[in-house]
């Protein structure tokens, strides 16, 4: 049995834990405000809030319910657009959309309402207001009216975090939110009976795109452990279950990788980043996996644990064996990924080019890290995606660049080596020749960003 609170209602259901949340909301609970747009997390029409009890308070995040399992919301508070409706009039997000005529056909609108309301749960120092709607597609308005609506919310919130009662008083959320922490304490977060079999899923943002129908009839194991980021004096250790949003929100991590938020903004959408985990990206082993490329360039190392409890360590660059083939036994799970904490004079950059700049799959992505002493490059690690069967650590290119004096020509010369290390194929993300050209360009872009940073 799974228990959770859906809007104000306690749900106790025997539905298989692999059933997707969107289906449950619409077909089992007949809440039709949440819309089916694409079932692959690419339109945001099914966006809902999921609130998790953390230290007696509830942390709310948006997710695309089409990619969420019932298992993932056990013991949590799920809020649909109906659950944001006030008894008298509109909530602030609804009002803003109404004020600026930011709804036309209305099909995407409930998703926008939920995403826009979620701005109140974001730290304004970490997020721009429009990050909240990065995963919502509207085909009617051209977004200008939506921008105005978001700006209206931003003005009301004044880039300040307020209390839950302030949000209730100021008509962002209904009164009943106040009782949710207490109610969640009384809600079971475990799934009974415990099943040791069934597919193991963490964020599920890839597996639910492919296998939603099959999973709907199964019980799955939802992995939610290893969700901490730990910084020691030497190392950065990131739990396998850490979501992309957690990386984003780690001010400690941003301190050592100052451009990280700009990089992560290029990766999927807020809703997906709220679900997708670091290890999920690795085990999915897409040749174009953004996080894989990002961590390859940090020369990261995985800790893998098997069912009997023994662990082994493996460099991430050795993890990807061939197309969608990884060095992971069925009884193993990734536990953490770690990399050396960079010292001073460290540079890190990530680049990604896709048809649409945001919420798209890259044609080519690339990341680089190095330290530098005077003008000499040290410990260069460069990785690239989309040009090989696996997310590729460029061993030779990295070696070539190391211990050399940085200048424009060096990067131009490195391209010849880079080209010898990659083997792109033509597909819908681009032709082979385009990907080769892009690989060259992104290598040069790393150099440009470095020199701009130095002169800034």
């Amino acid at each position, binding site marked *: 049995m799974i228990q959770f609170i859906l809007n104000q209602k306690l749900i106790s259901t025997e539905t298989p834990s692999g059933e997707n949340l969107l289906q449950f909301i619409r077909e089992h609970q007949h809440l039709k405000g949440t819309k089916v747009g694409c079932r692959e997390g*690419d339109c945001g029409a099914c966006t809902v809030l999921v609130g998790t009890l953390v230290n007696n308070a509830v942390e709310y995040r948006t997710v695309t319910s089409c990619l969420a399992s019932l298992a993932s919301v056990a013991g949590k508070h799920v809020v649909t*657009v109906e659950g944001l409706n006030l008894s008298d009039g509109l909530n602030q997000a609804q009002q803003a959309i109404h004020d600026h005529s930011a709804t036309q056909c209305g099909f995407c609108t409930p998703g926008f309402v939920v995403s826009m309301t979620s701005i109140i749960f974001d730290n304004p120092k970490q997020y721009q207001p429009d990050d909240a709607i990065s995963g919502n597609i509207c*085909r009617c308005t*051209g977004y*200008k*009216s939506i921008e105005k609506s978001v700006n209206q919310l931003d003005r009301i919130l004044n880039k300040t975090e307020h209390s839950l009662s302030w949000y209730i008083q100021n008509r962002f959320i209904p009164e009943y939110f106040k009782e949710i922490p207490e109610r969640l304490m009384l809600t079971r977060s475990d799934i009974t009976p415990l099943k040791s079999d069934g597919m193991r899923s963490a964020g599920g943002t890839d597996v639910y795109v492919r296998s939603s129908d099959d999973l709907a009839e199964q019980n799955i194991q939802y992995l939610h452990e290893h969700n901490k980021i730990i910084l020691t004096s030497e190392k950065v250790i990131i739990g396998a279950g850490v979501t992309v949003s957690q990386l984003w929100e780690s001010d400690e991590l941003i301190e050592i990788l100052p451009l990280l938020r700009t990089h992560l903004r290029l990766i999927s959408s807020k809703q997906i980043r709220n679900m997708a985990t670091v290890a999920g990206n690795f085990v999915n082993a897409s040749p174009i996996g953004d996080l894989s490329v990002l961590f390859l360039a940090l020369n990261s190392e995985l800790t893998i644990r098997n069912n009997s409890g023994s662990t082994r360590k493996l460099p991430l660059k050795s993890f990807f064996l061939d197309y969608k083939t990884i060095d992971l036994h069925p009884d193993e799970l990734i536990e953490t990924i770690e990399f050396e904490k960079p010292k001073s004079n460290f540079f890190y950059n990530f680049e990604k080019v896709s048809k649409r700049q945001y919420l798209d799959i890259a044609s080519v992505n690339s990341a680089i890290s190095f330290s530098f002493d005077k003008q000499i490059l040290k410990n260069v690690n460069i990785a690239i995606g989309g040009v090989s069967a696996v997310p590729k650590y460029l061993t030779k290119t990295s070696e070539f660049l190391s211990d050399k004096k940085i200048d424009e020509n060096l990067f131009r010369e490195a391209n010849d080596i880079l080209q010898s290390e990659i083997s792109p194929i033509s597909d819908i993300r681009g032709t082979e020749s385009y990907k080769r050209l892009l690989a060259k360009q992104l290598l040069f872009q790393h150099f440009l960003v470095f020199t701009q940073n130095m002169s800034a």
Partner: protein
Amino acid sequence: MEHTTKNKDSISHVRGTSIFVDDISEIRGTLQGLVFDSPVAHAHITSLDISDAERCTGVVKILTYNDIRGENQIGGIIQDEPLFAEKEIHFQGQAIALILAETLAEAKKAQKLIQLTYTELPVVTSVRQAHKNGRFTNASRTFRKNDAEKIFAKCDYVFEGQVFTNGQEHLYLETQGAYSVPLENGNIKIYSSTQGPTSVQKATAKVLGVPMHRLEVEVNRLGGGFGGKEDQATAWAAMAAVGTQITGRPVKLILDRHSDMRMTGKRHPYESDFKIGLDKNLKIKAYTATFYQNAGAAADLSPAVAERTLFHATNSYNIENVEVTVHSCKTNLPPNTAFRGFGGPQGMFVIEAAISKAAEALGVSAHKIQELNLLKDGDEFPYGQIASETLIQDTWNKAFTTFDIEKNIQQVADFNSKSKYFKKGYALMPITFGISFTNTPMNHARALVHIYQDGSVGISTGAVEMGQSVNTKMVLVATLTLGISPEKIKIETTNTTRVANTSPTAASATADLNGKAVEMACKILSNRLKTESARLLHLTDIKQISIKDNQVFVSEKLVEISWEELVLSAHLQRLSLTENAHYSTPEIHFDKSKEKGHPFAYHVYGTAFTVVSIDCIKGIYEIDSVKIVHDFGKSLSPALDFGQVEGALVQGIGWMTMEELLYNEKGRLLSNSLSGYKVPDIFSVPKIIEILPLETVGHKHAILKSKAVGEPPLMYGIGTYFALENAIKQFNPNYKHKFNSPLTPEKLLNALYDNHPNEF
């Protein structure tokens, strides 16, 4: 009376309580429909075995063409499209069978057990190949004005070129769907997400083999249409209805996104050849173009789309000698269909390309050529209509002065001279778009207006609400005509039993046609009520009586009769409180045998100025600004009309930039999901969109002088393509116009480095 109004559905939209087809509460016993479609684009079917699938748990019936009691035919203009494939498959995604099961999950399991064998046949996806093979969906058409070929010899400059514009997926957020419910005596009610309720009724009646009156088609609203549900909503409604006819049970059929993208047609891809001749003063003397339209496997709306390409082949320019021809080439793609602009954008792109080609060769700015050739009153369009109340020069001039375009152009040049890896480009895009269905017989509409005895009003029209706020406009028309507040007025669902024989909601003309009918009906009712007021007040002349703010006035002075009192009084006097009005657009006509006439009630004009920035390292781009002077006439509701301009513009920009339809040589759609087909998101739209209404008196054939606005602004998006090419040239001086849209980041990066004079 408040003219700036809100979409009347905006409250229920934001609260998530608006009802779309998939949200209708299902009647117990409803079956779920799932289409089994062709995995290949062209083949002979050798066998279809549904026996294993039919034995699956929950499966009630699997329908094929054998189950059709009427005709297996849904072609709208030309009868060339079966509902279910019989012996031959013509495109990938063509429907072969419909699985009806108690649950969708059961239907999906059964779908995997259907066994189809076939012999593959050669697949044609290219229009040039189809043209060579002589495969057309319908007859080619040519519009001619004077003799272009003869004049080329006398031109100082002649340029030729080729153009490709790709198709475009509609990507209405709500996928196609229908819900069919049995009524008594074999009658069926169909809830459909369609722009054309009558099309659904007519085609389904034929498929079912029943008269039209047995079918009631109802539309509440659409989650976006954009033309994609004008003709192509019909198949799903008809299939669901066949299911109801055969099983006697309600049938729901909602396409999932992948099926919708795979099975339905899109904006037509076009390949075109042009030839343009100018004199030394840059006056365009002659223009010819041949358009190869990729119609797909059946005609669908292609004949009408092709026709509109010809109507807009010269866009906003007066050219004395013109010959333009369109071929609707039959290929093995899904039948392509209506999409906002309806062939107009494809025609306009080519003349803009021709002008750019001339400008490139002559070393002048394209906008100089554009400006020198703009239409004025008295000019004759190639189809014989004489331009009148022409405002294109007004919008052009106002754009130049208000937006200080010359200064902007200088700023772009200054930026480019200083910046190495970032470049800017700009383009002007004038538009002239004809309003009316080009098929004259379709320009009519009706409205049924009931005033209930308590004073509340219910209005039915043939207009379908799909986000364009046509229902809100109907409320405004009724409000202004009856003199009562909008809360008293309800717009009913669009239903074929209340308003029959309607034209689809299309051609930007729906508010005009239906609005005029509402206005007529309300005027009659208003006059009747004024007569009743006169009786109550013992007056003989109703001219001094007016109704406004829910009150009766005599010679502008309030008398003590409220709207409610007046209505009740009329009811007790046994006066009719219902009117049904019919409107058909006056003046318009078109003779297809001569390809001449006066097909449009009026034209909509506008000018857009677009500035873009490109990153020459990564080959990506941003749109800095699009500034538009648009001819709204006298807008009924600027808030709603601005939304139409912004939305259409961004859709046009998507078509020109990131939206790339990809079919392989086997006719398989590769861009078959939202992860492979990208439409603009909030970060990719222009940083600035500025819209300035041209102040005009409006047009008498426009509803309350507020001009049609749905389609025309889409073509402002074409400016983005030319602005990008303009920017590319600033980085790569060897670059020559390619006229190959969409200009994706891939094409842009290649353009930046192809044949670049310097080594990188």
